[in-house]
């Protein structure tokens, strides 16, 4: 079937078997292998991408369901030589080892930071309303859908925390 996706700002027309998942469409048809297949069942988070700004497990979305959607993958954030701040922090904080879960962690963190900025509470939030303070515990809770068997978790959260501070300050400055 004919499917049109917008991936990292580019319109991509594809003729796909209706069984093709968004993840396989990205990896095998568009050759964007940054999004990883760790379980193909929505259990590990390695395939996390943004769909219209929200994080989703690309293995649980059929490509056909993403018709017309704006998809952002890790390739769309930055490339070597022009990494975005979160990617740079992942490198600096050693927020990865083997690197296989890393694109999913970074995409999930990108979506999560937006959710926190929008005031979405989590299971461990003190309150259901009001601004979210991204403590280590908050970040851990919100990132627990992304497994890392190398267990780079402390470095991942440090990287996210460093960026959360930056983006919070930027938001504050913008507000002032």
């Amino acid at each position: 079937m004919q499917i049109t996706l917008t991936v990292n700002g580019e319109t991509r027309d594809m003729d796909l078997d209706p069984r093709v998942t968004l993840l396989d469409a990205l990896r095998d048809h568009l050759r964007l292998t940054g999004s990883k297949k760790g379980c193909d069942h929505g259990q590990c988070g390695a395939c996390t991408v943004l769909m219209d700004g929200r994080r989703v497990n690309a293995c649980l979305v059929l490509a056909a369901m993403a018709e017309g959607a704006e998809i952002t993958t890790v390739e769309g954030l930055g490339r070597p030589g022009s990494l975005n701040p979160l990617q740079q922090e992942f490198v600096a904080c050693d927020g990865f080892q083997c690197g296989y879960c890393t694109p999913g962690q970074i995409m999930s963190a990108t979506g999560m930071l937006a959710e926190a900025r929008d005031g979405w509470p989590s299971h461990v939030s003190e309150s259901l309303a009001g601004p979210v303070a991204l403590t280590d515990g908050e970040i851990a809770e919100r990132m627990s859908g992304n497994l890392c068997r190398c267990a780079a978790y402390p470095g991942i959260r440090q990287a996210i925390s460093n960026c959360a501070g930056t983006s919070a300050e930027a938001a504050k400055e913008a507000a002032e």
Partner: protein
Amino acid sequence: MTVNFRMDAPQPRLLDQTGQGVIHKPLDRPEGPLKVSGRATYAAETHLPGMAHGVLVTASIARGHVEAIDDSAAHELEGYLGCWNGERFLRNPAQGMAGAAPVQPGDRVDFRGQPIAVVVAETFETARDAARRLRILYSEEDAVTDPAEAEFETKEDADAARAVAEALETAAHRIDATYTTASHAAAAMEPHASIAEWNGDQLTLRSALQMLRFNALELADAMGLERGQVRILSPYVGGGFGSKLGLGPEAVAASMAARDLGRPVRVAMTRQQVFETVLRRSETVQRLRLAADSGGRLTALAHDNRQFQLLGEGFAEPVPQASRFLYAGAARSYRQDLGRMHRTPSGSVRAPGEAVGQLAMEAAMDELADAVGLDPVELRLRNIPDAHPGTGTRFSAHGLEACLIDGAARFGWDRRAGPRARQEGDWLIGMGMAGAARPNMLVPSEARVTLAGDRATVETDMTDIGTGSYAILSQIAAEMLGLPAENVTARLGDTDLPGASGSGGSFGAGSSGSSVFLAAKDLRGQIAALMGAAEDGLTLKDGLARAGNVEKRLADLIAEPIAATAKIEKGEMAKETHQSGYGAHFCEVAVHALTGEIRVRRFEGTFAAGRILNEKTARSQCIGGIVWGIGAALTEELVHDARTGQPVTRDLASYHVPAHADVPQIGVTFLQERDDAANPIQAKGVGELGISGAGAAVLNAVANATGVRLRDYPATPDRVIAALAAAGL
């Protein structure tokens, strides 16, 4: 010419005399930008023209034969290309360092989940559909799938066992406790995958593997080829932890289909197949008996284990490996009962031996501390042996005492209260600790270093499975050649390059790092000759060569590229000394008195492992190990159906690897140490040291929090509630 080096004597600490200052520094991984931008290419991610897609089919019986495979329904699918099985098919991945094909059982089935065929089609979706359409006719035979029905092969030194029994009888204090640990899966994030591509009779395999030098031999043997006909590429590997030590069934399946089809074939295991097919860590039953005098000094130690393996597989988990030398005690015994079962075979999973052995041993030490009435740190300090207690071999650099003292101070161990003495609402708070040890090894490894002007290239088939090989090998060459680290490029993961140790057994950094060191050292000699100076009068720093009052830029001096190849192997030092990394773990937990939930609140580890080559990547290795310890203690349990042998917790939703929320920020400290007996770079492995004892520190903290000792792991909430209830709490 290749420099051949045997580690027969302590070597000068050259890396302490070179002046570049990049060794040990916490430099970022050079491949980091590729990984964080999704541009590092893993095994399944190369797109080759005309590539077909394969899906493995696994056995649904535990024992018997495949009588027939009917694929007529698959033929109805457009794009179906065929089904392959037969004599070359692998039953399971090769054991680590096998260097030859694992069992090729033909039509015989030995365990449920055994790969029996591969189905190939034009697309993944069609192949997956076709695989489900196969009708497989089996002849089934009786299988042993219940541990209670297994027959055991026993290894025991009767004299040693008798000596322990006698010491126990007269001891002032004794512990006799039995612990159980669950079966574990490596569960690397990247599922095993291979792409096979033939060019005439030459086979190129892109695969997720840890030890390419051995894997090439395994592939050639499995396919009936000469070694020179195969090339394996594994530039990036999405985690290994032992599960990718040996060539896997999907590699041979892809190679068979690709040869017949005359086009490249990709086969990636599903996550469920990874759990069913890849070598696991056996469940264990461990009986620990400790005898001590009135001062808490060990007089005897018996660490017995029961574990399981498939018939025909030689590997056994070396459960008491660290118990053999970590603590003193004259009488020592280690009985092993190996039960044969028709379940997925066992093999090396990160820290084989220590990962489960020290979980039990360090818990038993905690129980002994209680019995003697000694602080657990003090008990360990009193039992540090002067030499290997079993063999009398002298230790090389031995940092256990310093780790215990440093870790205790850093953690605030003196604030530990008595059992069940701290409570915050429904949460019981406790502290626990454990010692750590993991023996150090040197495995033959070869590398080539080329210097062109002021840029160097390191080439070896060493892999980086997340361990930091790209970083440390670049740093070693940079330090030796006086270059900024970014002037060195490491090319890894290609069997066309000099053969390395591979990544396994924590020996990769010391072994392959030494080969790079030796090749670079040879280059220093060549540079000195170009300078007309003696090597020991040469200084290399920031791309400048200095000898006497002559200074030249390497960019000018090295007009034509110069190269050196070096190979290291173990020698007399491995016989004359016992080498190990050491450490100490300290943990604080909260245990919910009603729900049995355990939260790890704080964790500090101090380690002594010789020279630390990159403080950042080594720290990550230790954190990773500690988290594996947390998983083994609290959540990870590969459950099998005893009736059928089917792995039940065969995905990441039911096999619980620790998630972000399970892991606090973790403190890791490295003590300054050089191990002159280990290798010429004075470094020991850190990849598995962090696991050793880590889970015991968690469980000992649980015992301190609750006043109740759990001995069946993982300590899931149901077990915690049952233990509290049994104690009347």
